[in-house]
Each structure stands twice: as C-alpha cells, then as structure tokens.
C-alpha cells in the first residue's frame, strides 16, 4: 500500500448567492448536484468529478471548480 496525494477537482457553490433555478441539476451528468429545499444548490462531493458543466451553465456564475487535496490509498500494481 502506497499513500499518494492526488489533486481532484470539485464544484463549489456560493450558496448565499444561489437562486435555486436548477439549471445545474439539469446538466450534471452524474446527478451530483441537487436543489435543497428550494433554497440553494448542494454538491455531493462523493459523486462530483469536477467536469465543470454546472459552472458553465449557472446563470449567476456562482459555481466554481476548485482543486481539493484528497488523500487516498492506491494499490500498487506489480
């Protein structure tokens, strides 16, 4: 087992500014974003792969794609 650090990209919503129109939900290929109680959009970090479709679609441009450092175990081949 080898511990490696790899940077992943995830979508982040500026929730205070969200108008909860649902445009992001419609374009997400993984169903990783939801409108919570009609108030704001929320990203499921486990599903999000940071493709950026939602960020491009968001009419208020309040979704950004940011790199997150994630530690995970990677099995070495061989």
């Amino acid at each position: 087992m080898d511990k490696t650090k790899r940077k992943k990209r995830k979508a982040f919503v500026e929730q205070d500014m969200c108008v909860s129109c649902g445009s992001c939900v419609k374009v997400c290929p993984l169903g990783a974003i939801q409108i919570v109680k009609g108030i704001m959009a929320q990203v499921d970090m486990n599903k999000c792969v940071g493709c950026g479709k939602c960020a491009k679609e968001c009419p208020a441009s309040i979704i950004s794609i940011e790199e997150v450092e994630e530690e995970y175990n990677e099995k070495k081949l061989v």
Partner: protein
Amino acid sequence: MKKNWYDYLWIVSLTYLILGFFNILFAWLGLLCFFIPLLISIIKGNKGYCNRYCGRGQLFGLLGGRFGLSRKKDIPHWMKSKWFRYGFLIFFFIMFFQMLWNTYFVFAGADNLKQTVTLLWTFKLPWNWAYHGTFFHPGVAQFAFGFYSVMMTSTVLGFFTMVLFKPRSWCVYCPMGTMTQLICKVRNRKE
C-alpha cells in the same frame, strides 16, 4: 440523458406567446405561471416549478444554448445581488397592482377598454387585431391586455439578458423565482 414530458414545456410557453397575437383572451392562461409555482412552494416547500416545469426558462435555455443566441458571459454582479433581486420583485409587484387597478377602473365603468399591450411599462403597442369582443365584461379583456403586457415585458427583458449574458439569466432576477425562493426560505426555516 432521458427526456421527460416536462422537458417539452417550452412549447407551451411559446404557444402562449403566439396565441396572444390571435386572441388576447388567451392571456388569462398565463395565470397558471403565477399560481402553479406559488402553490408548489407553499405546499411542497421547494422550487419544483423553476427546477422542472418552467417553460420560459427552458425556452431561454434552448434559444441561448442550442440556437446559440447567447454570448454566455457572466451576469454583472449587481444583477445577482439581493437588493436588485428583491427590488425588482417589489417593482414588479407595484406595476402588477397598477395593472389590476386599471382593470378595476374598466370593471367599474370609470374607464374604457384600451386595446394596447404595454411593453416595458412604457411603450404602448396597438393590439386591436387580437381583440374580437368578449362574452363577458370589457374588464375581462382589459385584464387580458394587462396580463399579456406583463408576460411580454418579462419575455423581452429575459431575451435581452439571455443575449447579453447566460441563456437563463432571467432566472437570476425572475420575480416568481425570487418570491418562491423566499417562501421556501420562510417555510423551511424551522427545520
């Protein structure tokens, strides 16, 4: 992605706008766009209307997206600020009540029916070709002209911001969207 029946509601929105050119009384149907989102937000406490059923949002999404009529630039910061969104909602409300007031005048017989559609609260367009009389009181027609004016005005505004900014820019400052979000916020506060 699989399409649902409600992904085609843009056809209904487009048809609504076209029908207003033939008979203004169809404008009454637009009340559905007012009551359905309100009822969904009050009863279910979510923005299901915006998220799924809003034909206008879909229409802008289609024209700006697939038809490429949008520059797809970021909306200016002040347009997504709270004061602008709530300010626009209040302004829209005032203009709406003024329209109801004018309708009341016609119902009361204090004013005559005006066969005009007022665009952007300013420009009065003659619209007499779409009026063929009514079985009811002229006030019924006056409301239709007034309500169609509201719908046309928001379409024109939404179209402009669609071209200038992202396709669904209208959604950012849509008074119905702001109002339903406010209802959801109040309703879900306790939980």
